[in-house]
């Protein structure tokens, strides 16, 4: 251990640190359930792992995003123009954090130096980041560990962006002054040493260093608490409160919840204890949560890598606190449910799998969620799709209800290809720069769909190797796009930059189409041949043609393919002849049009581009095949169904008036 904490009596979770443990916190916090105010004392041990001498500190005060309508968060388009509508009315709805004191060591008061800072925009009313300049004598030398004592007060908002309170339910996230990440030159995109401490935007999440958290939460004694990490101690106090002490190691954040109404259910998978805190109204959903969590843990263990933590806590918010549902924190996730949810509508399972997947892509592989949200949300969605489709079925993992079936992977693709403008933005852009929409679908669905395409190109086994290598190499670190691409190149043994240039750095779409399949008889030469004296007229003898043996008949057949989208992918084309023979052709997919030509006794019956749906990001699979014997039956099926329901509607309305 390279730092001292006030919690030396804590039970160590990992005998050997799994991460660099740069930012470590001891926090004592007391919740006033009536005023919704947190009074906290934080001791931060922060280590300068760079070779730079650092002359300032930067912190996130995320709750100030909800302080007033002028914050950058509430000014962003995600929640309407100002956000006040979502909050409702009254003083109780706003949230804020205030640092009341900051000392270095025990006696150097830094409080007067604190200033609000806006690194991303010119909004001087935004107070979600503070900067603390340090005089030369306090500059932090390479390798130094500093100790800061921070007193703070935070008021929780009515639940907003998955944090806050709703009546007696508290979901406490992004609640304490949290130091930014100092990036040394060469780390991710940094060319010189700098703080990476972005303001809180409507579309962005978080970025933090790994560390150890010792957190003591004092709450009214009737409250049941769940939190990041492992419970160490539970103590009743004289003032009708209770203090819960949790410790988490090698994590990037700490969140907790308190409610007097939680019911507890538990299960376990190998070394992982799963604890579900659920509100009584949703008690019937408990088995679904636990089953989904266990199956997802198992799937990730097999296909990505070992989940290192000893536990996972799942919170099911009450319906009046549903806005806190569907969020991920280290070892601690929130689901969302509805007590009347039919079994075939697998949203409980879907959200649980998604949030658990974030334990890998966000918590263990701690990419920058502000700048490269696709690296966590997109990867999470891709692996969640795989886990759910494998568990519940490729064609019905998301919905299997009343004759409607939908798989997870296909549902995400449908979301992307069904966008009004799938070219609205490229994946590779910071969250706050999706100013005119598309953030969610591009970040989640498009990424998941092109990762499926990558899987199609390299094969599932290689894709697993890529994910496993990425996980092993970058767990407990901060990778960026370049790092993932390098791993893809390394594992595949090919330079795959061409792929990422198109799917990650460009907004173009992929669409290939079989324009036509043509079968014509091989014509004999006819016309005038030769020059001068040797000029000769050759005419086709139709009689001879008719009498010729059927076996000698040959067809000149063509498959004509168009590339409609700008994205170029290698293509396979399956050509099926009348005699049942099939030929699988390969094309580099580069040209605008491409032709396959055959001279055979049999006609082509049908042809299909990408018969195994490897290029999953093709925006229209319906134009990927062409048959010379088109089947009108689906049109009859849907037309008769349409007529039937229109007749029923006519009869119903007519019988009422």
């Amino acid at each position, binding site marked *: 251990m390279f730092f001292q904490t006030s919690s030396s009596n804590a039970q160590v979770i990992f005998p050997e640190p799994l991460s660099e443990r740069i930012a470590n916190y001891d926090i004592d916090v007391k919740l006033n359930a009536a005023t919704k105010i947190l009074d906290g004392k934080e001791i931060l041990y922060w280590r300068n792992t760079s070779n730079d001498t650092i002359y300032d500190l930067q912190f996130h005060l995320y709750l100030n995003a909800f302080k007033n309508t002028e914050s950058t968060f509430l000014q962003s388009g995600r929640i309407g123009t100002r956000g006040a509508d979502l909050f409702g009315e009254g003083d109780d709805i706003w949230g804020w954090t205030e640092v009341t004191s900051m000392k270095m060591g025990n006696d150097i008061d830094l409080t007067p130096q604190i200033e609000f800072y806006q690194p991303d925009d010119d909004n001087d009313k935004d107070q979600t980041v503070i900067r603390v300049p340090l005089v030369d004598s306090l500059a932090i030398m390479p390798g130094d560990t500093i100790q800061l004592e921070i007193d703070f007060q935070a008021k929780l908002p009515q639940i907003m962006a998955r944090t806050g309170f709703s009546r007696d339910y508290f979901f406490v996230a992004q609640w304490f002054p949290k130091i930014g990440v100092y990036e040394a030159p060469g780390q991710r995109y940094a060319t010189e040493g700098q703080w990476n401490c972005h303001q809180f935007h409507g579309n962005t999440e978080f970025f933090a260093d790994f560390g150890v958290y010792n957190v003591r939460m004092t709450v009214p004694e009737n409250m049941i608490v769940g939190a990041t990490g492992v419970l160490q101690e539970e103590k009743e106090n004289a003032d009708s409160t209770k203090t819960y002490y949790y410790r988490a190691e090698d994590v990037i954040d700490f969140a907790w919840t308190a409610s007097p109404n939680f019911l507890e259910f538990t299960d376990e998978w190998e070394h992982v204890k799963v604890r579900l805190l659920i509100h009584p109204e949703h008690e019937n959903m408990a088995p679904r949560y636990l089953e989904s969590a266990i199956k997802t843990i198992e799937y990730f263990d097999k296909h990505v890598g070992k989940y290192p933590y000893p536990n996972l806590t799942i919170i099911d918010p009450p319906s009046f606190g549903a806005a806190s549902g569907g969020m991920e924190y280290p070892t601690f996730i929130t689901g969302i449910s509805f007590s009347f949810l039919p079994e075939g509508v697998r949203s409980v399972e879907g959200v649980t799998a998604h949030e658990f997947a974030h334990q890998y892509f966000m918590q263990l592989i701690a990419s920058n969620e502000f700048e490269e949200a696709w690296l966590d949300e997109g990867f999470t969605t891709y692996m969640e799709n795989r886990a759910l489709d494998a568990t519940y079925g490729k064609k019905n993992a998301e919905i299997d209800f009343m004759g409607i079936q939908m798989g997870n992977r296909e549902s995400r*693709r449908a979301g992307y290809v069904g966008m009004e403008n799938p070219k609205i933005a490229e994946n590779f852009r910071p969250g706050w720069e999706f100013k005119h929409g598309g953030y969610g679908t591009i970040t989640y669905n498009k990424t998941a769909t092109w990762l499926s395409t990558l899987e199609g190109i390299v094969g599932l086994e290689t894709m697993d190797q890529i994910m496993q290598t990425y996980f092993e190499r970058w767990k407990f670190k901060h990778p960026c796009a370049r790092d993932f691409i390098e791993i893809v190149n390394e594992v595949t043994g090919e330079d795959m930059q061409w792929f990422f240039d198109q799917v990650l750095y460009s907004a173009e779409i992929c669409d290939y189409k079989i324009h036509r399949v043509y079968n014509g008889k091989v014509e004999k030469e006819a016309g005038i041949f030769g020059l001068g004296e040797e000029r000769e007229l050759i005419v086709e003898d139709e009689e001879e043609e008719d009498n010729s043996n059927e076996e000698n008949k040959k067809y000149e057949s063509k498959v004509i393919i168009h590339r409609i989208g700008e994205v170029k992918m290698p293509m396979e084309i399956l050509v099926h002849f009348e005699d049942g023979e099939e030929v699988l052709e390969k094309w580099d997919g580069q040209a605008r049009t491409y032709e396959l030509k055959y001279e055979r006794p049999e006609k082509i019956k049908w042809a299909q581009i990408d018969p195994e749906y490897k290029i999953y990001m093709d925006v229209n699979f*319906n134009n990927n095949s*062409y048959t010379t014997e088109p089947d*009108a039956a689906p049109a009859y099926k849907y037309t008769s169904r349409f007529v*039937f329901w229109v007749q029923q509607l*006519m009869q119903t*309305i*007519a019988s009422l008036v």
Partner: protein
Amino acid sequence: MIRAFFQSIQKTLFVFPLILLVYLVNLGLGLLLALPYFKVFRGGIGNSMEPSKLLAGYDHTVYRDLMEQIEGSIAVVDGQTPWMILIFVLLSIFFNGGIIGAMAASQDISRKSFWTNCRHYFGRFFRLSIISIIAYGILAVIIALPLAAYFKGISSSFTSEQAFVIPAIIGAGIFLFLFSFLSMSNDYAKVKIVAENSRSALRMFFSGLKFSFRHFFSAYIFYVLLAMILLVGGFTYWKLSGVVGTSSMFTIILLFIIQQILVFIRTSIRIWHLAYASSLYQNLQRGGRW
């Protein structure tokens, strides 16, 4: 009630050609929409093999891709649908006069008198329809307002979503009951317009309501019985469609025939209710109970 029941069967059989007429008009209007719908769908399929996957069952990827391709054209057909429904409703109001007239006469009536009755009662029936639409609206408001007030009242204190769902189900149940009662009494109002040759649709609307209240069990039990037959028919269709499937042209045609049988049964049941209303009214009137 028993007597009215058997008489209604006789009357329904008596107007069988008219049932056929209503059904054929219904089918004809449906087919008018079907032609452009089929053309759009067929055009969307083109020479693709993918849509064939829709024959075995629902395939989300194929369906979504196809819909993305044709949604603009389908929207045009969808835009025509409400007009076709309106035409059928107006024709249905028009035919009701002729059908109830034929039932009231209980003897062979000429084609001419059928059309005469249709024309004769159309205005009154049309006014009655407008009144019933207003009544449905008022009923919806009467049910929705207290529910909305209740939901607003509990929004800051509810502890479970059941606090919303259960009252919503109860509200829907009450609405369904009152709605069906109103719909049923509307048929009695039509019968009385013809029987009394009344020109006042509003008076007959209330008279129909009064009749339905006074003879609630005789009227409503039969109405519910018919609704049950329809439900059983719907359930049977749902099961049959699963068994028959749509994997080939043959099964598609077979299912279309089953669908049309169901629509014909529905048309017959609708007219059977008018016949029962006519019989019940006549019997009670003869017995001096009305």
